């Protein structure tokens, strides 16, 4: 459908449709962020013998996040006197914009995708890498020592873990022969890549946690050492933008793992085809998000230098070995 619209001559009609679709996706993502945060707090709460939010919006706390966002928007806008003002203002936007840009290539079902570009996977990784600029700039512009340390950690960590992230997914690309996310999904009709590429999946998953700055790799904002890391001086809606970026990336990364390793919208068995693809996608996606939350409740944090060692000395060699193995198997058996 979208393909046809793209081919048709421009006019008010297809402009309207595109605008509407964009608004729908925005609502889906913001809805996820709102209820993803609630789910995280609820799941963490139940794992930690607490109830989580249960006051605002009924006993499930359904309006808690909405109330929190409203509070953040209404807060006084504070810019520290010693901060580098233009950079301080622009940093949250730099961190946040790429998180929405990556969603354009994400095939949620076989019909619902905005830009079916040939190098979708490469586009995702390249654009998501831009976010680290926002963090480093934010940390630098705050003119705060903790923020600076947090920003430096963010830069080191993101760059080091982007490499195993790309390398681990090369095995999948070798098997499909394409960087197009649609083709990667359709290739998984006879077996998901989590089964064909188990090593690649594990490396990718670990690296993705580091990319998302979540426990046990939440060093850039490690609360117990750096107080809040790169966003220690931010408050109000600027801080909300950093948080929004973080949760949109959680959405995007979970979607990417679903697409690349869990067969996207495809049903696990042929006879379950009657259930729509969107439902399958949502199910797999939710499982991935749950695992991220689960890990956060369980694990302590890495140490900065060990984190680097782990990325370069463990994950990268494994990812490279995985590429070699995949290439070998492919040339022998396919």
């Amino acid at each position, binding site marked *: 459908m979208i393909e046809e619209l793209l081919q048709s001559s421009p006019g008010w009609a297809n402009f309207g449709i595109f605008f509407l679709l964009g608004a729908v996706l925005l609502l889906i993502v913001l809805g996820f962020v709102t209820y993803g945060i609630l789910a995280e707090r609820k799941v963490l709460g139940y794992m930690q013998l607490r109830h989580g939010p249960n006051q605002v919006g009924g006993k499930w706390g359904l309006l808690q996040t909405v109330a929190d966002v409203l509070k953040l928007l209404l807060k006084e806008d504070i810019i520290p006197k010693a901060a580098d003002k233009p950079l301080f203002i622009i940093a949250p936007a730099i961190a946040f914009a790429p998180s929405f840009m990556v969603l354009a290539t994400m095939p949620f079902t076989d019909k619902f995708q905005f830009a079916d570009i040939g190098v979708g996977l490469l586009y995702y990784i390249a654009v998501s890498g831009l976010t680290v600029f926002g963090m480093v700039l934010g940390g630098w512009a705050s003119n705060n020592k903790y923020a600076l340390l947090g920003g430096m950690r963010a830069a080191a960590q993101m760059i080091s873990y982007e490499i195993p992230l790309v390398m681990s997914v090369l095995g999948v690309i070798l098997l499909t022969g394409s960087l197009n996310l649609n083709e990667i999904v359709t290739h998984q009709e006879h077996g998901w890549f989590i089964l064909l590429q188990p090593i690649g999946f594990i490396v990718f998953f670990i690296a993705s946690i580091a990319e998302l700055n979540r426990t046990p790799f939440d060093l850039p904002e490690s609360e117990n050492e750096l107080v809040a890391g790169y966003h220690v001086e931010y408050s109000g809606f600027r801080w909300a933008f950093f948080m929004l970026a973080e949760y949109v990336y959680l959405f995007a990364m979970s979607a990417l793992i679903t697409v690349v390793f869990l067969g996207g919208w495809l049903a696990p068995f042929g006879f379950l085809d009657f259930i729509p693809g969107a439902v399958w996608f949502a199910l797999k996606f939710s499982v991935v998000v749950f695992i991220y939350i689960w890990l956060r409740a369980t694990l302590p944090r*890495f140490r900065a230098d060990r984190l680097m060692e782990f990325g370069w000395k463990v994950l990268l060699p494994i990812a490279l070995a995985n590429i070699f193995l995949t290439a070998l198997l492919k040339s022998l058996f396919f």
Partner: protein
Amino acid sequence: MIRTEEMILNVGPQHPSTHGVFRLVVKIDGEIITEAKPVIGYLHRGTEKLAEDLQYTQIIPYTDRMDYLSSMTNNYILCHAVETMMGIEVPERADFLRVIAMELNRVASHLVAWGTYILDLGATSPFIYAFRDREMIINMLNELSGARLTFNYMRVGGVKWDAPEGWIEKVRDFVPYMRGQLKGFHDLVSGNEIFLDRVKGIGRYTKEDAINYSLSGPNLRCTGVKWDLRKDEPYSIYNRFEFDVPTSEEGDCLARYHLRLAEIEQSLNILEQAVAQFPGEGPILAKVPKIIKAPKGEAFVRIESPRGEIGCYIASDGKKEPYRLKFRRPSFYNLQILPKLLKGENIANMIAILGAIDIVLGEVDG
């Protein structure tokens, strides 16, 4: 040209991982600490000076507020010192109540140490599991004394309140429950690779260092020195119970972590025996004069608190108030080795090392 510069970082007084109002001025080169200077005194209330104008019974609530995580041992040290000076014989039932209260408090204190230590290392859940079990102890001590943290329970010559009906049974049921929980704690954290990576071989010091810096408690025993006043200089009725003094040879953060959990186990052993031998009847307060006047002279007593050796020195000129009162506060002494340990470590290790010493700022500042 690239030029690097040392940076001075003020960690605290408001910082999530300093366990209170403790300030650490560190010089860092990148993330490596070249020099660390602890600044203390933000919680100083002058307990020792205030005590000079107070009668002995009035000082007891002040001791609650020194090491607020184990107020029972603090209560005891003051009462013990005055009793030693006056030669008061404490009734058996009171002694049992004191030991049960102190050991319960020791378990609670070590649970806080365990939970907050893991929290410092970035894991949030174990902290809450530890506090759930601590809550049970706090509730029991609340039933006994009427307070949850600052108990003000002991008096010169005995204790203030008798155990309420069914309380001893509650303690008896708690012991096996806590043993089960301890196993769960080990399963959850002790074998975790990330955790081991953070604490193994970190903050190591030798036996000589520990003795020279006058460390005590788990901080001393982690280097292999078997020194526990409950065993080596038994006070109260500790000589009636059988328990071990766990030690370790490593001297690193992991050893201290394990020792605290092992000490909880030993405290549970003591509790089990104390509850079994608990005398059915008897007075809870010795016959003491209405106005307590320590005889002219001086005395120094010391006992084993969860954090180490706590001592109390009283000089009296025969009045209702002490002429001079001095506490040897173990957290203060244990903290002194910190600058030596921090040199050359990075920021993440700083948190791990400080947490493993297990200080209570109320006690450091006095």
